């Protein structure tokens, strides 16, 4: 626990807080310009995200896919790689999990099996761009974007064609009862599913990997200085391949968690771009698993509250995407701001 605090202490945590405040300030101006009271909007966010037990559950469930994709991006960033293919890995992971959950039936182990299948699918999908990068030199971002198109369109075709369960919706056949993680509580229309805790367990495991295991040290060293890592006997290429694969697996797990915890099948609209949102989540979370969870909770809250915002104030839910975008710019501004404040304070002292 001390380690986590130490990692977050000083610069990075403060930077992220400054970025959130700065982005909120900019957003307030935008809200005011379109004729709303920023204070009202803020209170709607808080009401809609934390107001009662139902909205808390909704916030946690909305955060879950963001935690997975944020962890996926954070892991790759730690090794100096940019896994912008999270969306595609999420799709193939979710689709593979849905098929496994329908056709295989190892009783209560079905949900675990679905996660394994989804992780393997995400891992395999990530192999293509990283192999092209390391053996042929084409940047992984290009390969990832290509693989996203292939994944998304392939899954769409499969769910509309061969694996369509019923004519009315674009869904695969439902998973076995054993494929569901247990629902812990239901308030109103919101189920709070145990899958949320899987995301926290995965975050803890990733922390352990990154900061406690030799492999985590190796991937961070390779990400920070490939030459020094190689001279220290680290197999840089192997490390990068495995890291990128694991990053893909994490994104794939996010797909499985949505299938096992929310939808019960693969649904064509099951991701509004979670794989891409992971970029903002990882950046705001400073590529630290605890930071990722915190950032995902923040964005999850906003997503969940956006329904209320739309209903009460008729502000489009797109405002949260605006916020996510501003956060990225605010992160860039945060460091100089922190330095200026620190310099002022030390001068006064």
């Amino acid at each position, binding site marked *: 626990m001390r380690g986590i605090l130490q990692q977050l202490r000083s610069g990075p945590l403060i930077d992220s807080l400054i970025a959130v405040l700065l982005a909120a300030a900019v957003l307030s101006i935008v809200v005011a310009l379109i004729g709303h009271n920023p204070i009202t909007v803020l209170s709607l966010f808080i009401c809609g995200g934390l107001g009662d037990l139902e909205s808390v559950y909704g916030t946690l469930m909305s955060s879950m896919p963001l935690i997975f994709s944020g962890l996926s991006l954070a892991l790759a960033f730690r090794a100096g790689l940019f896994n912008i293919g999270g969306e595609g890995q999420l799709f193939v992971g979710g689709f593979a999990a849905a098929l496994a959950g329908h056709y295989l039936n190892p009783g209560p182990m079905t949900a675990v099996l679905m996660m394994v299948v989804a992780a393997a699918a995400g891992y395999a999908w990530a192999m293509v761009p990283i192999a092209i990068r390391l053996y042929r030199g084409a940047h992984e971002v290009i390969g990832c974007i290509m693989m996203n198109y292939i994944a998304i369109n392939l899954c769409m075709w499969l769910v509309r064609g061969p694996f369509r369960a019923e004519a009315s919706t674009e869904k695969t056949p439902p998973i076995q009862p054993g494929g569901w993680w247990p629902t812990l509580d239901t308030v109103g229309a919101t189920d709070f599913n145990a899958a949320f805790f899987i995301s926290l367990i995965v975050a803890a495991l990733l922390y352990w990997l990154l900061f*406690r295991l030799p492999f985590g*040290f190796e991937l961070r*060293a390779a990400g*920070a*200085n490939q*030459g020094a890592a190689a*001279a*220290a*006997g*680290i197999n840089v290429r192997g490390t990068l391949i495995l890291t990128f694969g694991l990053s893909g697996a994490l994104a794939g797990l996010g797909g499985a968690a949505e299938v096992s915890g929310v939808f019960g099948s693969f649904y064509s609209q099951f991701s509004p771009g979670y794989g891409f949102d992971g970029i903002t989540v990882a950046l705001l979370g400073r590529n630290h698993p605890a930071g990722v969870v915190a950032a995902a909770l923040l964005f999850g809250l906003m997503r969940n509250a956006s329904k209320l915002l739309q209903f009460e104030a008729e502000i489009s839910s797109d405002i949260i995407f605006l916020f996510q975008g501003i956060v990225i710019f605010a992160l860039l501004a945060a460091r100089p701001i922190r330095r200026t404040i620190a310099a002022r304070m030390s001068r006064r002292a």
Partner: protein
Amino acid sequence: MSLPETGPRPVVRMTGIRKRFGETEALRGVDFTAYKGFINAVIGENGAGKTTLMKVLFGLLHSDAGELEVNGNRIAGSHSARRAIALGIGMLQQHFSLVPAFPALENIILGCEPVRGIQIDRRQALQRLDEIFAELGGGVDPNRPIAELSVSERQLVEIARMLFTGAEILIFDEPTATLAPQEIENLYRLLRRLADEGRTVILITHRLREVIKHADMVTVLRRGIVTAGFEREEMNEERLIGAIVPEAADLLAVKERELPNVDERAEPVVELRGVDCTDKESRTTLSGVSLRLRPGEILGIAGVTGSGQKELAEAVIGLHPPAAGSILLSGRDVSRLGAKDRRKLGVVYIPEDRFADGVIPPFSLVLNRLLGDHRVPRLRCRGSYRMNLLREDVKDKVGKYHIDAGDPDASLASLSGGNQQKLMLARELDREPRLIVAHGPTRGLDVVAARRCYERMLELASQGDAVLLISTELEDLLTYAHRIAVLFAGMLIDAGASSELDARKIGLLMTRGSAA
């Protein structure tokens, strides 16, 4: 132009300069004067504040207190590099700052391009460059990309760039660190020429012999204050060392080194048999290199920068498999083993460029210490690293290797360059090595630290370690190596026992490949 009869004219006057970085005070009230037409040297140990002082002068750093006067005018308000350049100050930094893909001309005019209308005036630029090269007494083809130039040619380009901006006060930070002996002589000839033409040369260096031979004035810094200043006729090695590090004068007084005995019949620690290496584009980087090192033996490798030194070091430590030939460690063929396995067999490596291949500046001291040992079971306990053990170990090394550092969890980047180097040395040399591959191990170290580094290597050699010492500092090779070999265009030429060699003979081998 010649010196006015009335004595040297101060061009730069810095008084009471103070600069603090967080907890440490790098400059604690420094007075420094540089004279027109002089080579003004600034010396001192690692972290003494030399580079910091010059960065203040060049406007790269803001001083916390003190006054700066250039050409008799007080510089008030905030100083900046832009303003410094406008005042006629130029600085050649420790690390090259050229764009490798750009031709020499474009690098030189970068930042102050002569224009006609809205276009860059190439003809005028070339004309002025011709004048500058004529003034420097040498030049390079303006159309050749920097990447194709040698280290000394790049330096010439950097100097031309300073003159192109109209600099009259020229700061050189460790300009001879990467040059061959002949190139060093040429550089000093050039510096003298610039000074004689009425420019002011400020020279930061660790090499006392060069200061004594070439400088007109020297200012000695120690822990952020000026401890002494000497004029040309007052300088000698003992005085300078006494001013730089009074407590280490004894250590440096010993001139002759006793090298460890080598048993000629012992099994070699490392042996290379006809090793060829190629780079990614299949160009030959090493051809037919053979060498043999017995326990306790120190082999010095000299050569002009870029003759295959890095490739040789990387072939021995296992980063690149040889294209032909074989590498043996204690009689075992390891040609196909990677760096990880060779490390296990006791090969340690001190790379030439610690930033590229040695350390990770944003990581803490502890994590940098851990690098390369991160799979050692002893350092792990119950699924995690034994951080307290590692912290203690770093503290031990900080004491043992005289590293100027406090918190083991602070980032390595918070240390001065010399202290980063010392931590890397400590990490590698304390690993119970069998073979030490050291490429410019004293780069950035002051005289005392450099001496300590070599003392430690001699100690390890006397315990039976073999040392492959690659360096451009011929004096060091002659002092500390049993034998010297010269790399010339990827070939290794045995020069013989160091007791029968001198710098001139090695220099000939370096530049021509033969002593004739």
